[in-house]
């Protein structure tokens, strides 16, 4: 490998920038987008009630954060998202394991789970607020109902695709069904389960915000409505920025956790896929 690399003409200089080109390109796209937005708004004199320039959004964001005005709401939404994800994801995982472990449940319970999934969860939010009140719990339940399904569906798929030779090997060594489940099927399903959790954690942000839209006394969704009433559009954008940072952080956390848990699967960085 080394000899080949040295034999090639040194046209591609492996500089730091080249090594990190995807980051550089990504940053460039961001700067271009923000620049066009700012420039466009100024050039065409777009009223800030319709579309505020990024600079105004940034100013509003800094003001909201430094005044501590948003702290309470960030905490509220954060608790709703994490609570909803823990509840919905945990329940989806456990029920998925039960259904995967006992095939009879797949015919008896899972059809109802699928039927429940066909109801738009967003449409349930008003009912959930009636049942659970205007506090944290109704948002947690809304978030949980939305993030539940991808987790249970992925858990089931993961448990279903255990390689036949692994099951046969376990059986040949006198393993019981439950041993095959714990020692082969469940570990093999983990990458799928994490894919479901990754989708679920982002969906639970949506669930929490929808819950707050329907009726709340705190939270970032509640603040979006407040600022909309006062036509503080830059302020609404500032909250959107916080929400997207929030979602990306949760997504990154799940990816990190996945790499720690599912350590035996990682991309092969040394492979050459094309010239």
């Amino acid at each position, binding site marked *: 490998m080394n000899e080949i690399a040295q034999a090639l003409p040194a046209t591609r200089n492996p500089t730091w920038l080249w090594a990190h080109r995807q980051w550089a390109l990504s940053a460039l796209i961001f700067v271009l987008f923000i620049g066009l937005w700012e420039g466009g708004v100024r050039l065409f004199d777009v009223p800030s009630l319709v579309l505020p320039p990024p600079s105004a959004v940034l100013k509003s964001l800094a003001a909201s954060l430094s005044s501590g005005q948003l702290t309470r709401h960030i905490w509220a939404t954060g608790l709703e998202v994490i609570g909803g994800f823990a509840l919905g994801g945990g329940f989806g995982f456990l029920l998925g394991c039960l259904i995967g472990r006992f095939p009879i449940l797949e015919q008896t319970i899972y059809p109802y789970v699928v039927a429940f999934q066909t109801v738009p969860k967003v449409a349930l939010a008003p009912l959930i607020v009636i049942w659970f009140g205007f506090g944290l719990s109704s948002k947690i339940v809304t978030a949980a109902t939305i993030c539940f399904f991808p987790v249970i569906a992925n858990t089931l798929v993961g448990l279903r695709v255990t390689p036949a030779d692994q099951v046969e090997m*376990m059986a040949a*060594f006198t*393993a019981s069904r439950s041993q095959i489940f714990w020692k082969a099927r469940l570990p093999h399903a983990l990458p799928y389960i994490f894919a479901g959790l990754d989708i679920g954690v982002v969906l639970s942000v949506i669930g929490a915000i929808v819950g707050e839209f329907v009726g709340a006394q705190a939270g970032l969704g509640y603040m979006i409505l407040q600022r909309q009433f006062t036509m503080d559009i830059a302020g609404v954008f500032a909250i959107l920025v916080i929400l997207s940072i929030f979602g990306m952080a949760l997504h990154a956390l799940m990816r990190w956790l996945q790499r720690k848990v599912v350590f035996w699967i990682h991309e092969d960085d040394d492979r050459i896929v094309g010239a």
Partner: protein
Amino acid sequence: MLIEIAGLTKSYATREGLNVEALAPLSFTVREGEFLTIVGPSGCGKSTLLKIIAGTLRRSAGSVRLQGRAIDGPSRDIGMVFQSPVLLPWRTIEENVLLPIEIQRQDVRNHRARAADLFRLVGIEGFERKYPKELSGGMQQRVGIIRALIHDPAVLLLDEPFGALDAMTREHMNLELLRIWKDAGKTIILVTHSIPEAIFLADRVIVMSARPGRIAEVIEVDLTRPRRLDMINSDPFGDYVRRVRGHFGSHGGLDA
């Protein structure tokens, strides 16, 4: 007799409802400490036969007895080696080897010393903490072999264990397997589609032919032990190869 197989058959029902006979009635016995190989073309049912002995596949009729007891399911007296090593990628090599001990709910700690002996036996000591994908194919198959030995079974069943390895590694693994057989004192049944491999390893070769799978001939291999690779070029060895190949005609269907 360690293993007695009498009137064993296996048939499958096809989607059209036809009954396809995979194994015609088979009867043979295996002596304690014997190295028996089963050779035949693809589709002759040799792997099916091995799976029935391993207890992972139901037979249609007949009986399989191990040490006088009927085999109706997987048994602790059997250690199975598969064509692909089937190691669990999330377990270290040592954890993979100790899997049968865990499954049988024996004390894993008490078997670490035995595992260490087996690692030495197949020459992969020092790799206990590695994960399967860090090992070459030949090394993975050695792990598969000592996993089948860890619970000290009476019989070792190998289903084309070296089929996926290159020719040179394969010869080396054959010698290794003979050494393990001698040291561990197990009875071995090995299924292969390679005629020279079947002869080189065996005390007795069962030659199977296809559709339905049946025993064409049982050949006692009278070559001196320990076997050496240069025996493959000897006249007696060539005679055995011709004798086995005689059952399959000139169209072959088997490794030369």
